[in-house]
C-alpha cells in the first residue's frame, strides 16, 4: 500500500490550468448572474450582519461600534437561554419523531398498493400549504373552546386543555403540527432512497429465511443510512430555523412584538431575533443572536458529520 502511495506521489503533477483561460472564463461568465447575487446578497449581507453584531444599530441611524457588548448582554439575557432551551427542546422532539415517521410512511408507500399515488399526494399536500392555512386547520383540532382534541377528551371525561397557552403543552403541540406539515417532504426523500435498494438483496434474504422485520433492520436501514443522514441534518436545520409556524400559531396580541406564547413558552431563537430586530429596533443585538444561532448550527452539523462515520454506509 505504502509503495503505491509513494509511486503516486512521485508522478509529475498534471499541469495546473490557469483558471481564467478560455473555458474558465466562459464558465465564470455563465455563472456570473448567480455569483453577483451571491456576493451582494449573501456574502455581503452576512459580513454586514457580522459587523452589526459588534455595534449598536437601530436601523434608523448608522451603526456605532460597541465591540463585544451585544454578545456580553446576550449571554446574560435570561430570555436568550429560555429561547435556546425552547429551540433545543423543539429539536429533540421534532427530529427523531419526524425522521422515524417519514421513514415509516416511505416504507408503507413503497409497497404495491391500490391508489398509491393518492396516498403519496395526501401526505405531501400539507407541505405545499402555507403556514397560515395550516394554522387554521391546527386550530380546528387544538382550539380550547371548539377544537376536536378537547371534544375527544371530553368523551373520556378529561377536562379541556388550553393547548397553545399551557406552558407544558405548547411545544409538543407545535411539534406535532410541524411534523404533520412537513413529514411528506422527507417521505419523498426516503422513497427515493428506498427505490435505490436493489430487490435482489431482499430476494436473497427471503431465500435465507429472513422475516420482514429482519429485512427492514438488516437491509433497508443500513442501505438508506445515507438518506437518513441527509434527512436528520435537514430536519435539525429546519427546526432551528422554525419561525413562521411559531409566529403564526402563538401570536395573538395586536400590540407589536407580542408573540412567543405565555411566559415566552414558545419563544425560539428565530422569534427572539425577529422581535429584537424588527419590533424593538435592536438590529445589532438581533445580529448577535443570528451569529450565535449560526455557530450553534455549524457545531451541531459538524458533530453530525463526525458521527456519521459510525452509522452511515455509502456503497
Amino acid at each position, binding site marked *: 500500500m505504502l509503495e503505491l502511495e509513494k509511486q503516486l506521489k512521485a508522478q509529475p503533477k498534471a499541469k495546473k490550468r490557469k483558471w481564467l483561460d478560455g473555458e474558465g472564463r466562459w464558465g465564470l461568465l455563465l455563472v456570473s448572474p448567480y455569483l453577483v447575487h451571491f456576493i451582494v446578497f449573501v456574502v455581503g449581507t452576512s459580513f454586514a450582519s457580522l459587523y452589526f453584531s459588534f455595534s449598536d444599530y437601530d436601523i*434608523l441611524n448608522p451603526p456605532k461600534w460597541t465591540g463585544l457588548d451585544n454578545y456580553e448582554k446576550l449571554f446574560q439575557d435570561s430570555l436568550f437561554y429560555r429561547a435556546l432551551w425552547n429551540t433545543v427542546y423543539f429539536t429533540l422532539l421534532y427530529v427523531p419523531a419526524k425522521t422515524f415517521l417519514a421513514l415509516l410512511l416511505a416504507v408503507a408507500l413503497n409497497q404495491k398498493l391500490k391508489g398509491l399515488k393518492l396516498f403519496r399526494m395526501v401526505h405531501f399536500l400539507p407541505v405545499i400549504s402555507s403556514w397560515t392555512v395550516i394554522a387554521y386547520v391546527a386550530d380546528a383540532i387544538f382550539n380550547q373552546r371548539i377544537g376536536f382534541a378537547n371534544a375527544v377528551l371530553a368523551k373520556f371525561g378529561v377536562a379541556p386543555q388550553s393547548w397553545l397557552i399551557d406552558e407544558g403543552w405548547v411545544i409538543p403541540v407545535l411539534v406535532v403540527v410541524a411534523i404533520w406539515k412537513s413529514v411528506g417532504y422527507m417521505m419523498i426523500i426516503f422513497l427515493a432512497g428506498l427505490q435505490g435498494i436493489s430487490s435482489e438483496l431482499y430476494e436473497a434474504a427471503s431465500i435465507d429465511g429472513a422475516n420482514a422485520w429482519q429485512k427492514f433492520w438488516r437491509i433497508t436501514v443500513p442501505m438508506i443510512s445515507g438518506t437518513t443522514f441527509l434527512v436528520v441534518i435537514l430536519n435539525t436545520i429546519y427546526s432551528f430555523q422554525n419561525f413562521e409556524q411559531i409566529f403564526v400559531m402563538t401570536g395573538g396580541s395586536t400590540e407589536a412584538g407580542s408573540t412567543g406564547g405565555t411566559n415566552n413558552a414558545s419563544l425560539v431563537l428565530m422569534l427572539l431575533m425577529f422581535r429584537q430586530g424588527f*419590533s424593538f429596533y435592536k438590529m445589532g443585538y438581533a445580529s448577535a443572536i443570528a451569529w450565535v444561532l449560526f455557530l450553534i448550527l455549524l457545531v451541531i452539523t459538524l458533530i453530525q458529520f463526525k458521527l456519521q462515520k459510525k452509522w452511515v454506509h455509502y456503497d
Partner: protein
Amino acid sequence: MKKRRLLSTIGILGLLTAVLFTGCSSQPSITEGGQLELFLGYSSDPPTKKKMEEIIAKFQTSHPNIKIKTETAPYEDFYQKLTTQIAAGTAPDIWQSDGTKVFGFAQRGAIRDITDYVTKEINKDEVNGLEFNKDADGKYWGVPQGIQVGALFYNKDLFDKAGVSYPTADWTWDDLKAAAAKLTLDANGQNADDPAFDKNSVKQFGFTFFGSSRGAFNILKAYGGGVLDPTMTKSIIDSPENKKAVEWMADGMKRRLFPNPADLKAFQSNFKVFLSGASAMQIDIYAATTAMNGAELNYDVAPLPKGPDGKRFAPVIANSWVINKKANEQKVRAAQEWITYWTTSDEAQVEWTQVGEAIPVKKSVANSDKFLTNNTKPENKKVFLDSLAFAGTIDTNAVFAEWVKVFTDNLSELFMDKYGVEEYIAKTDQGIQKVLDDFFKK
C-alpha cells in the same frame, strides 16, 4: 484574442450594471413643469387609499406649484419599508405616522422638530389633539392626521336580554364589574352572581380588555396610577393606586367575568369575543366601529368609567403627519402646506370623515353632522369627542413596543394565576425600568 476581450468587456459591464442597480438613484426635487415634488407616505387599505388619492388630487388643484408623489402599503409593510428607507436616506419627505411611533421616530432622530410651525401656523382652538405630539420638553413632533380615542363599547342586545341598564357616564369601574357579573353567563344560562354559576363553562363574558390601549393601562390611569412618569423615562408601576387597580382586574379574572388570555386565544382573535356577541362590553378605539358595523352588532358606546376617586382616563392614539429630518427647506415648506391644508380645509376633513376611520382633527367638522351622523352606529358618537376632555397618550416613547411587551406578558401570567399581584408589580416595575434604562441611559 478579440473574442476574449469582448467576453471580458461583457462580463465587466454585467457586473457594473448589477452594482448600479443595487445603488440608489437620487430624485430631482423640481419637475419639468417647474413644480416642487413632495414625496408623501401613508399606510392604507383599499378604501383609505382611494380617499387619500382623491384628497391629494384636490390639494394639487389648489396648490399647482406642488406635485405629490405617494408611497403607500398596508400597515405592516409600510412601516417595514419606511424603516429601511429612513436608514438609506430615501424615506418620504412627509409621512403619516402611527400615533404610537411618533416619539420613537423623534427620539431616534428621524423626524423634524416642528414646534415653530405648529405654534405659529396652527390654531389650537381649531385642531384636535395637538398636545398629544408634544414631548416633556414642550417640542412638537407631528400634527394629528386622525384621532383615535378609547371608549366603552357595549352590546345592547345582551344588556336587554339580561335586563341590565346600559352603561352611563357616571359609572365607576366597580359599577362596570357589578354589571359584568350579571352579564357573565355559564352554559346553563346562570349569571356570575348566581350561587349555581359554573366557572368552568362560561359561554358569555361580562367585559373584555386586552393589550395596552384596549386594556389595563386605562384602568391603572383611572385609579390614579400609571406606567411611566411624565418624562417617559421612569417606571411608576410600583404604587398603591396601581396595586388597587391590578387587584380589581385579577379579581374579575378569578370570578371569570373577563376572558383570560387562554379564553382570548380560544376565540382566535382578541377582538372576536365582543364581535361574535360573546362579551357584553369591551374597551376599544373609534377605528373599531368599522369592524363592528361590518359584523352588524347592535352596540353603542359610553365613556370609560371613573376610578374610585372620580378620576377619568381615555386612551388616545393621534396618528400624525411627521416631516423627514433630512427633507430640504423647500420640501419642508411644501410639507407644511399639505399639513395646513389637511387640518384646516373643510374639503379634506369632510372627505376623510366619510371613510369612518378616525375622529376628524378639525374641531368644527368633528362637531358637525358630518361626524355625528345618526346614519351609522354607534349612535352616541359624541362620547368620543367628550372623552377627549380627559384623554391622554398611552405613554408612547422610543421603547414603547418593548415596555408594552413586558407589561402585557406579565399581566397574562398574573391572569393565568402564575403569580400574585405583589409579584406582578415588582416584576413589572423592574422589567420596564430595565427596558427604559437600556435606551435612555446609554
